[in-house]
């Protein structure tokens, strides 16, 4: 076994020689050996830690909710602008990931072009406010509706397909939307993006500091979590789960698969539209590069990392994938590398995600 590991590390070093040069490859060998050693040590230690029993704490659920909301409300008073900014972004991504969770986690429809809906929401909001002269609050529901409708439109071709084909078609849809945003200069101003999106007002009170946005996004996150949770435990949610587990059986139980899939796509896109509009309102600037394929992958990663179908898991996943890269700014170059490797390791060692959904 140990010989095999050493041989394997040698093989990897050999493979990377053309790219890293002989020096790099020679350094890679001890590096990988050390990493393997660390892995073994951590694994041994984790066995010891598992034997330690933590005292059971009974938590009053209601008290816990109230406490966490108080903490969330008070949080921006203690943080500087940079952290608030990051947390706002995380909040927007939580809404997005919740939306994808409806499609991917509940109904099991792999959508690899989810950033397209995000883009539709953001661009609708941007265009409605800058071109049509609407205020943020009238543009927001309109752009959410437009996005939900675009979800419905994509569902038409997508519903006849299963599994991998669906993934590829949604990926294609995402790419087509990005290309349109990039090339339809007269409407979207191409790669330059749209600037000058006005800040939202509430009763004549301009929301232009980060703290205001924090509360705005927080309210929407709470609404999203609440609504998605209620839908999950409703008949609709059950029907989605049934479709995810076995389409034929679901059909046999009298569930209309097509209708529920339409609903999943539209409902998922709805949240993406909300997140997009919030993003446009916060950044006051949108450009096609915010909605690339990598963005779709990132959102999918949040859902998968946290645990497919689990709402707390998805929130955790979105938080980790937004906060962690910010904390590791110095290693910025390596973060995508780590994300790729992390996805593979995750699938191999813990395919259910961090918080498994039963």
């Amino acid at each position, binding site marked *: 076994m140990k010989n095999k590991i050493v041989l394997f590390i040698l093989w990897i070093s050999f*493979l990377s020689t053309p*790219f890293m040069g002989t020096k790099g490859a020679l350094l890679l060998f001890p590096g990988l050996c050390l990493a393997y050693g660390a892995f073994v040590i951590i694994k041994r230690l984790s066995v010891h830690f598992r034997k330690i029993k933590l005292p059971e704490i009974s938590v009053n659920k209601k008290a816990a909710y109230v406490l966490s909301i108080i903490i969330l409300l008070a949080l921006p008073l203690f943080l500087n602008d940079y952290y608030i900014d990051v947390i706002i972004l995380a909040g927007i991504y939580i809404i997005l990931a919740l939306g994808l969770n409806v499609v991917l986690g509940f109904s099991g429809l*792999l959508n690899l072009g989810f950033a397209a809906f995000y883009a539709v929401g953001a661009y609708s909001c941007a265009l409605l406010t800058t071109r049509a002269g609407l205020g943020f609050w009238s543009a927001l529901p309109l752009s959410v509706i437009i996005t939900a409708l675009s979800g419905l439109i994509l569902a038409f071709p997508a519903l006849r397909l299963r599994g991998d084909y669906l*993934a*590829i078609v949604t990926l294609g849809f995402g*790419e087509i939307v990005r290309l349109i945003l990039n090339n339809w200069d007269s409407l979207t101003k191409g790669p330059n993006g749209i600037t000058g999106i006005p800040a939202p007002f509430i009763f004549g009170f301009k929301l232009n500091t980060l703290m205001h946005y924090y509360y705005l996004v927080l309210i929407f996150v709470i609404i999203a979590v609440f609504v998605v949770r209620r839908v999950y435990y409703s008949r609709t949610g059950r029907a989605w789960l049934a479709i995810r587990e076995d389409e034929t059986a679901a059909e046999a139980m009298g569930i209309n698969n097509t209708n529920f899939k339409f609903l999943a796509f539209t409902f998922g896109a709805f949240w993406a539209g909300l997140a997009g509009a919030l993003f446009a309102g916060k950044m006051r600037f949108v450009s096609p590069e915010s909605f690339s394929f990598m963005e779709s992958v990132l959102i999918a990663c949040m859902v998968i990392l946290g645990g497919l179908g689990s709402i707390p898991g998805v929130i955790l996943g979105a938080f980790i994938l937004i906060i962690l890269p910010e904390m590791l700014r110095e290693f910025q170059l390596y973060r995508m590398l780590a*994300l*790729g490797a992390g996805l*593979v390791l995750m699938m191999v060692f813990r395919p259910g995600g961090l918080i498994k959904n039963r």
Partner: protein
Amino acid sequence: MFFQQVINGLTVGGVYALIALGYTMVYGILELINFAHGEIYMIGAYLGIIFLGVFTTLGLTEYSLTLSLLLTFIFSVFFCSAYGFTIEKLAYKPLRNAPRLSPLISAIGVSIFLQNYVMLTQGATDKVFPHILETHRIEFFNATMTTLQVFIIITSLLLMGLLHIFVMKTKTGKAMRAVAQDKVMASLLGINIDRIISVTFIIGSGLAAVAGLMVAMYYGLVNYSIGYIVGIKAFAAAVLGGIGSIPGAILGGFVLGIIESLGASFLSSEYKDAYAFVVLIIILLIRPKGLLGKS
């Protein structure tokens, strides 16, 4: 103009077809979209530049250009095959019995990893393929064709022919077809499935390496991000022809290449990358099994 675009389309189509073969073979056997396949193609292009650079410093290119090009091809194919083999062992084999979603996510992970690995080691800027080949222009009718284009079309056709013979005539090829039909039955009949899957990955990656090298020679520029879009297009080609079918992948590659170059010149070049997806969606709606797919 029309004829010229068809020739350009055939050149690009040959490349798409070579990559599509890798997709279709893996899909036929594992039912997995190997997202990392496009990255293997990109690695092939990079390896071509790296090895040719090494041979230039060694003085081999001055001694004999043909020999050094041949060696570049051999080395790139070897390394790419090794990459394909290793990726399969590391990222797909442990997930053989997992739900369908897991290997797909793992494939996306590998793809992201390889892209960034190449970007970190080779830099984010475009790399230039050394301009050492002299290309002659051949004029006929009212179109021109460079010798490089002839070379690309002939090489891809030749490799496809070889692959066809391999899959149809040899014992390993027959075993591959058996595994694609029914994995359990094939293993009961004494076929080593792991070995066959490895062979599939090795051959597919080798073909992608050749495609990458030829594209590097054709366009002269390579970037770490070229793999993703070409990979998706090649997959579209595989679906177009009927996934799992080798002649289908070849046909799909050529058809897609021609559609793309005609579309770029007669419709709009800005939406060049979108044609593949539009064609893909239309095909999946009208004929989900593809042009040559079995129903």
